[in-house]
């Protein structure tokens, strides 16, 4: 289990014991985290799992994939911290990860 904290745009925090091997999107959907929809089920086709990841643990994330990068380029409210949650797999390395969800998806 890996601790992940989701922070909504209004500051509401929820910490979750996430299952390793699941995607961050699936973790959010399974735990009813508002702001992450995952409409395409993780196919990297919808960008409704857009989130922000900052801090030292961001360096442990896999590089942006080509499709992920392109989908994000056009997403609303994109920043340097933007990621697609469906493209990130939860692992022990990410213990303590903080994930912010954008306002547009609420």
């Amino acid at each position: 289990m890996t601790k992940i904290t989701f922070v909504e745009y209004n500051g509401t925090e929820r910490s979750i014991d996430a299952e390793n091997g699941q995607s961050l999107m699936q973790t959010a959907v399974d735990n009813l985290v508002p702001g992450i929809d995952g409409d395409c089920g993780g196919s990297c086709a919808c960008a409704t799992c857009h989130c922000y990841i900052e801090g030292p643990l961001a360096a442990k994330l896999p590089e942006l994939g080509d499709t992920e990068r392109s989908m994000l380029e056009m997403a609303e409210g994109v920043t340097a911290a933007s990621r697609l949650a469906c493209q990130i797999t939860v692992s022990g390395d990410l213990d303590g990860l903080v994930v912010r969800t954008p306002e547009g998806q609420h």
Partner: protein
Amino acid sequence: MSANVVIVGGGHAAGQAVASLRQGGFDGGITLVTAEQSLPYQRPPLSKAYLAGELPRERLLMRPPAFYEGAGVDARLGVEATGLDAGRRSLTLSDGGQLAYHHLILATGGRPRPLPCPGADHPAVHYLRTIADVDAMRPRFVQGARIVIVGAGYIGLEVAAVAIKHGLQPVVLEMAPMVLARVASPEVAGFFERVHRGAGVDLRTGVAVSAIEDRDGKAVVVSTAGDRIEADLVVAGVGLLPNVELAQAAGIDCDNGIVVDAFCRTSAPGVYAVGDCSNHPSHLYGRRLRLESVHNALEQAKTAAADICGKPQAYDQVPWFWSDQYELKLQTAGLSQGYDQVVIRGDMATRSFAAFYLKDGRLLAVDAVNRPIEFTLAKRWIKDGKAPSAQQLGDDSIEAKALAA
């Protein structure tokens, strides 16, 4: 008794309706009635990762069982709604039960159109709509097997791609002169034909199935071209019949789907229809549409839930869809029917391009292959009713982001 909602269905639309009702503040009872043995689940992986054996069944669920418990949903799995009395607002169930409702959401989807030829009841013939369908064909979906896929729509082509990856020998028969005939242009269809043939698919267009015969337990597919193809497995993907019977028998207006207004209301008070089973007015395209896509199912479910929660918001969105075949990501936005010009941006040979469909210079739709930026932009342009000129669209030397509408 406070107001209650009954939802009939077990797909994307039903699952989203539950979530949106609770998110929207609805605190009355919710009963979910689905003929399938599963809580609402996602169908797209059925012809992709689930068929490929790369996704466990639990991952198909839209939301985990705990969600429905937490939301206080009375979920009746494996139960069919067999009768609807729209006047008395009650449903009859296959388990003998009755359910009264204040609001009823019909999210009944559709069922595969049966192959119309003699012999279609051969045990090697399968359809692909449900988890049970995939599980049933799996023993025949094995390396080395000869699989005949009838129909080259998205589902048929996705099955062909997975079959190749798994070492099966796929033959695809398509009655129309090209693949994806209902949705794509000859240019885009030609691209997918080259990709599939290049990958080893025996793709035959302009060929229908005239009969299926039996030879020692295997199917022999007889084509209108006179070929006889022996197959371990036949997968038919020749379209969907919307499940309208429940509504129709109750006297609710149906015409290629259950007819709804912009708020997903049917002709019966308190009854909504959402997803593949519904036929809605599109302001954007100036005609009625019955769409078969996840996006439509999710958004219509949100629309019906919002109306029930007293926050009506008309449904008028740009339709979109995706399909994964081999390493290709196809994203399409809008509807191309009636186009008079196709503009290709990029080089098809590099497997990265976008095909824009225009009518009288107005952008109707895009088919984007490995081009998420063009897809996202086009979706916006279609919505706003303005787009760059055909010449700009076709000029791949201008960065897509720089293309101003």
